[in-house]
C-alpha cells in the first residue's frame, strides 16, 4: 500500500528510463511509452479507489515521521487529478505515435514526455511544499525540452519567452518557500496549516500569500501574468501543445487551490478579493484575445487562459459549491481542451494548415472528426447537456448564492464569447469549403495512423459526453472533494496522526 502512492511518479520515471535507450527504434519506444501510460492509468484508478474507501491517505517516505520527512498524501482532489492526468497521458502518448516525427523521437521525445508526467503527478501527490517545488522543476525542465525539441525557428522564439517568464515564477516560488519556512519552521503542508494559525504576524502572512499568488499565478497563467502562454503554445508539435494545454496550467491552479485552502487561513479576505478580480479579468481577457485570433491553435491557447479564470473563480468564491464547481470544471476542461488540440492537429493533417481562412471543408470530407470537435467545442462553450454546462452551472449557482451578480454576469458573457469563437472555428474549418478544394478525408490516411489519431479523440469525446449525460456521480465526487478541502481534518489526521486533533482546536 505504501508504494502505491509513490508509483504515480516512479512509474513515469521508470518508463522514461526505459524509452531513452530505445529512442533510436521509434516504434518500440512508442510502445513502451503507451504501455507505461496504461500501467499509470491502473495506478491512478487504484488510488482513486483507495481514497474513496479509506479517506485521505498518507505515506511517510523513508519512515521519517510527518513534519520532518517528505510526505505523500492523496485526498479526493489529488486522486481525481492523478486519474485525469493519467488519462491525458495515455491519449496523448497514443496520438504522438503518428504526430511526432522520427527526428524528435530520436532526440528523446518519449523520455521527456514521461518525465513531464512524473513532474505533474509528483506535484499532485506531494504533501510537502519544498517537494512541490522540486516536482514543479521536474515538470518545468521537461516542458522546456519538449517545447524546443526539434529546434524550429518558431519553437526557439516561443521557447525563449516561455523559459524566461517561467524561470521568474520558479524564483518567486523558491523565495516564498524560504520565507514561509523562516516564519513557521516547517514546510509540511499539514503542519503549516497548524503552525501558521499560531503565527502572530498578519503583515508577513499577507505578503507571503501574495507572493504565492504571483508564483503560482504565472504557472497557472492568470491575468496579468499569462503572456508566456499565447507566445509559445502554438509553436511545438500539436501533441506537445495538447499535453501542455491539458495539464501544465492546471498544476498551477491545483497548487493555488491547495495553498489557499490548506496553508493560508481561508478567512483571509483580501487574498480572495485579489483572486476574484484576477479570475474575472482572466476570463474576459482570455476570451477577448481569442476573438481577435485567426489561427486554430492560437484561438484555443487564448481559451486556455479564459478557462483558467473559471477555475480560479471557484477558489475565490470559497464556498463548498464553488470549490466543487472548480474541481468539476478542472476535470471537464482538461478533457475538452486536450481533445480540441488533438483535433486541431488532425485538422491540420487533413487540410494542410492552421490559419482559419486558408483551410476548411472538413465537415464534408470527414464528418466523424467534425462530430468529435462539435462535442468538445460546444462543451467548452457550456452547451447543455455537455460537461461544460454542468461545470458552469455549479459556478454560476455558487456566485448567485453569494449575491455576486457581477461575477455571474462576467461568467455568462465569457460563455457567450466562447461560443462565438467556437462557432467561428466550426464555420471556418468545418463548414465552409476548402478555399483550394483539397481537404482530404480521414480514409485517405494510412490505417494505423487513422487509428492512432482517432482513438484518443474518440475516448476523450466519450468522456465529455459521459460527464455531461450522467453528471451526478461526478458532481457528488466534486462536492466531497470540496468539503475535504474546506474541512481538512481528515487530511491532517492522515499526515500527522490523530494527535493533530488537539491542535486544530486552536482554529
Amino acid at each position, binding site marked *: 500500500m505504501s508504494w502505491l502512492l509513490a508509483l504515480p511518479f516512479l512509474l513515469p520515471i521508470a518508463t522514461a528510463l526505459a524509452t531513452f535507450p530505445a529512442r533510436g527504434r521509434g516504434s518500440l519506444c512508442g510502445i513502451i511509452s503507451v504501455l507505461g501510460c496504461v500501467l499509470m492509468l491502473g495506478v491512478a484508478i487504484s488510488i482513486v479507489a483507495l481514497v474513496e474507501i479509506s479517506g485521505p491517505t498518507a505515506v511517510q517516505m523513508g519512515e521519517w515521521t510527518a513534519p520532518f520527512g517528505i510526505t505523500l498524501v492523496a485526498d479526493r482532489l489529488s486522486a481525481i487529478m492523478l486519474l485525469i492526468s493519467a488519462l491525458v497521458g495515455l491519449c496523448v502518448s497514443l496520438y504522438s505515435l503518428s504526430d511526432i516525427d522520427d527526428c524528435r523521437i530520436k532526440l528523446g521525445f518519449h523520455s521527456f514526455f514521461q518525465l513531464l508526467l512524473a513532474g505533474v503527478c509528483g506535484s499532485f501527490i506531494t504533501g510537502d511544499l519544498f517537494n512541490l*517545488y522540486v516536482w514543479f522543476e521536474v515538470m518545468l525542465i521537461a516542458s522546456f525540452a519538449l517545447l524546443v525539441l526539434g529546434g524550429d525557428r518558431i519553437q526557439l522564439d516561443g521557447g525563449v519567452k516561455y523559459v524566461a517568464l517561467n524561470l521568474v515564477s520558479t524564483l518567486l516560488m*523558491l523565495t516564498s518557500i524560504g520565507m514561509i519556512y*523562516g516564519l513557521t519552521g516547517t514546510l509540511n503542508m499539514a503542519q503549516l496549516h497548524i503552525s501558521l494559525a499560531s503565527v502572530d504576524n498578519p503583515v508577513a502572512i499577507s505578503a507571503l500569500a501574495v507572493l504565492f499568488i504571483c508564483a503560482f499565478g504565472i504557472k497557472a497563467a492568470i491575468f496579468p501574468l499569462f503572456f508566456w502562454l499565447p507566445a509559445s503554445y502554438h509553436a511545438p508539435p500539436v501533441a506537445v501543445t495538447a499535453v501542455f494545454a491539458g495539464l501544465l496550467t492546471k498544476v498551477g491552479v491545483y497548487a493555488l487551490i491547495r495553498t489557499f485552502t490548506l496553508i493560508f487561513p481561508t478567512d483571509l479576505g483580501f487574498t480572495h478579493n485579489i483572486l476574484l478580480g484576477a479570475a474575472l479579468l482572466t476570463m474576459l481577457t482570455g476570451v477577448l484575445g481569442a476573438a481577435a485570433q485567426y489561427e486554430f491553435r492560437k484561438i484555443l491557447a487564448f481559451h486556455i487562459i479564459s478557462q483558467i479564470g473559471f477555475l480560479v473563480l471557484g477558489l475565490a468564491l470559497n464556498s463548498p459549491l464553488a470549490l466543487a464547481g472548480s474541481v468539476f470544471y478542472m476535470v471537464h476542461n482538461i478533457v475538452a481542451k486536450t481533445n480540441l488540440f488533438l483535433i486541431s492537429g488532425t485538422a491540420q493533417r487533413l487540410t494542410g494548415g492552421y490559419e482559419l481562412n486558408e483551410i476548411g471543408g472538413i465537415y464534408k470530407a470527414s464528418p466523424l472528426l467534425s462530430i468529435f470537435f462539435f462535442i468538445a467545442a460546444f462543451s467548452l462553450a457550456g452547451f447543455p447537456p455537455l460537461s461544460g454546462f454542468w461545470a458552469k452551472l455549479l459556478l454560476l449557482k455558487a456566485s448567485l448564492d453569494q449575491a455576486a451578480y457581477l461575477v455571474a454576469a462576467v461568467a455568462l458573457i465569457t460563455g457567450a464569447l466562447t461560443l462565438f469563437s467556437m462557432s467561428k472555428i466550426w464555420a471556418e474549418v468545418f463548414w465552409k469549403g476548402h478555399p483550394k478544394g483539397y481537404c482530404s478525408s480521414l480514409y485517405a490516411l494510412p490505417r494505423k495512423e487513422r487509428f492512432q489519431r482517432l482513438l484518443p479523440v474518440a475516448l476523450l469525446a466519450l468522456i465529455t459526453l459521459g460527464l455531461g449525460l450522467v453528471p451526478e456521480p461526478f458532481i457528488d465526487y466534486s462536492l466531497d472533494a470540496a468539503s475535504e478541502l474546506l474541512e481538512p481534518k481528515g487530511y491532517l489526521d492522515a499526515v500527522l496522526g490523530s494527535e493533530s486533533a488537539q491542535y486544530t482546536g486552536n482554529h
Partner: protein
Amino acid sequence: MEGPLAIVVGILIATGVYLMLARDLLHYLFGLVLISNAANLAIFIAGRLTRAAPPLVPKGLEVPPMPIANPLPQALILTAIVIGFGLLAFALALIAQAYKVLGTLDVDTMRIAEPAAPKRKRKP
C-alpha cells in the same frame, strides 16, 4: 548578521531586476542568475544564523548535547542550487541556440511566434 545579509539580498535583487529590464536576453539571464542567488541567500537567512556546532548527534545519544546549526535550510539550498544550475544552464544553451538560429538577442525583434500584425485576408 541578518541585517547586512538582508542588505546584500536587496542589492542582488535590485541589480538582477535592473539587468532583467534590459532588451538583451543575455542581460536578462544574468539578472535571473543574480536573483536566484539572492533567493538562496534569503532561505539561508530565514533558517536563522547561529554560531553553533555542526548538526551531528554523538554516538549513544538521542539528542545532541549542545546547540546545533539548523541543517534543513542548507539541504534546501543545496537542492535549489542544483536545480537552479540545471535550469540556468538550459536557458544559456537555449539563448545560444536562439542567437545562432534567429541571429539576434534583442527581444523586441523576436516576433516569429507572435507576428506584429496578423495578415487578414478578406474572404472572396
